């Protein structure tokens, strides 16, 4: 049985045996790709001769299947088919390399996503971002967004500089574009479970505690919807009181009425679910936020950035600028 490193080597060394004749001159690059929460993935990129678009495939899911007894030969055959299909589909992305150099071409597609600050230090050092308590807003260019998938490009510092733009401009564009492209959603927990499990809502036992799921139509990178003050105001009206926000994952957040419990109780619950049900790449935060409808503010409820900095082993994990110690005002978005 191969370990993950050996599996990565094996796929890179043998994939050409499973590719069609026209791809035998393709270059196979073996490398690591950093994703959310500084999680690194084993990747191979297949670059056909003269092509500007190349599929990058990740080994982790395939390796899990291999460990669970999947036939390696069948996996490689499937992988070869996927690469050929990916190259055919990817032809439509050929325009990106030219479009991406001109800010005018991309500015209407700049969107925002939320990540945790502490576990994304490497990523944040290289990407324009705006701090929001223990979270950071990063910016992406949406290439394709529909109800099933989201294709996007993370904006790095070098790209922002080449465009001659600023974090402030990216933030303003993202506030305008994100609701239009990703479309915020707020549904009850019962509705969300019904959609996620594919069963009728009436088959989900109703909860005694009102719980709402805040996300977007793609259900991908939907946690940033908590920064949309219009959505938060509507939810406060629906609940009839201020509420706590639980960072379920980078894809969605939950809201419960403030009368439900203390932030400390809720924070323990978030940590339990993060430890048992959320993949490391999808974790957003272990902390709870309070939305004050009158003040239009969203702020850490169970701790503060200063407290987190004190307990952090690395002092550089949180750069506490004076304005970030205060409650943050979600911006009003244009729908």
């Amino acid at each position: 049985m191969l370990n993950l490193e050996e599996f990565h080597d094996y796929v890179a060394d043998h994939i050409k045996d499973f590719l069609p004749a026209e791809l035998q001159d393709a270059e196979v690059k073996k490398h690591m790709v950093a994703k959310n929460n500084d999680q690194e993935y084993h990747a191979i990129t297949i670059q056909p001769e003269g092509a500007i678009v190349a599929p990058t495939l990740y080994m982790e899911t395939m390796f899990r299947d291999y460990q669970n007894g999947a036939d390696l030969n069948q996996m490689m055959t499937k992988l070869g088919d996927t690469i050929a299909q990916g190259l055919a589909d990817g032809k439509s992305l050929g325009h990106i390399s030219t479009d991406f150099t001109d800010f005018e071409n991309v500015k209407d597609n700049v969107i925002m996503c939320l990540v945790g600050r502490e576990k994304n230090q490497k990523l944040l050092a290289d990407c324009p971002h705006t701090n929001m308590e223990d979270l950071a807003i990063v910016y992406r260019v949406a290439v394709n967004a529909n109800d099933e998938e989201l294709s996007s490009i993370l904006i790095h510092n070098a790209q922002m500089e080449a465009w001659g733009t600023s974090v402030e401009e990216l933030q303003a564009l993202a506030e305008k574009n994100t609701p239009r492209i990703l479309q915020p959603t707020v549904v009850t927990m019962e509705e969300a479970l019904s959609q996620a499990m594919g069963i009728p809502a009436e088959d989900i036992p109703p909860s005694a505690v009102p719980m709402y799921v805040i996300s977007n139509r793609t259900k991908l990178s939907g946690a940033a919807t908590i920064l949309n003050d219009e959505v938060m105001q509507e939810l406060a009206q629906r609940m009839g009181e201020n509420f706590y926000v639980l960072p379920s994952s980078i894809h969605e957040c939950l809201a419960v009425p403030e009368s439900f419990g203390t932030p400390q109780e809720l924070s323990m619950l978030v940590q339990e679910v993060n430890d048992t049900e959320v993949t490391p790449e999808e974790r957003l935060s272990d902390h709870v936020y309070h939305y004050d409808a009158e003040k239009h503010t969203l702020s850490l409820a169970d701790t503060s950035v200063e407290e987190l900095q004190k307990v952090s082993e690395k002092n550089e994990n949180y750069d506490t600028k004076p304005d970030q110690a205060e409650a943050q005002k979600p911006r009003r978005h244009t729908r």
Partner: protein
Amino acid sequence: MKEVIAMDMNAAGVLVEKEKKPEGTAKRLAGYALKISKKGKEKEHA
């Protein structure tokens, strides 16, 4: 083996990340629903 192999596209050095609907959403939400409901019942009986 899963039908979907995790794949992004590299377009002239720019990584286009393709995300499909996350598989763990139901499990994650169910985890919260159960724990919050349980806490709610405990509070009712307290």
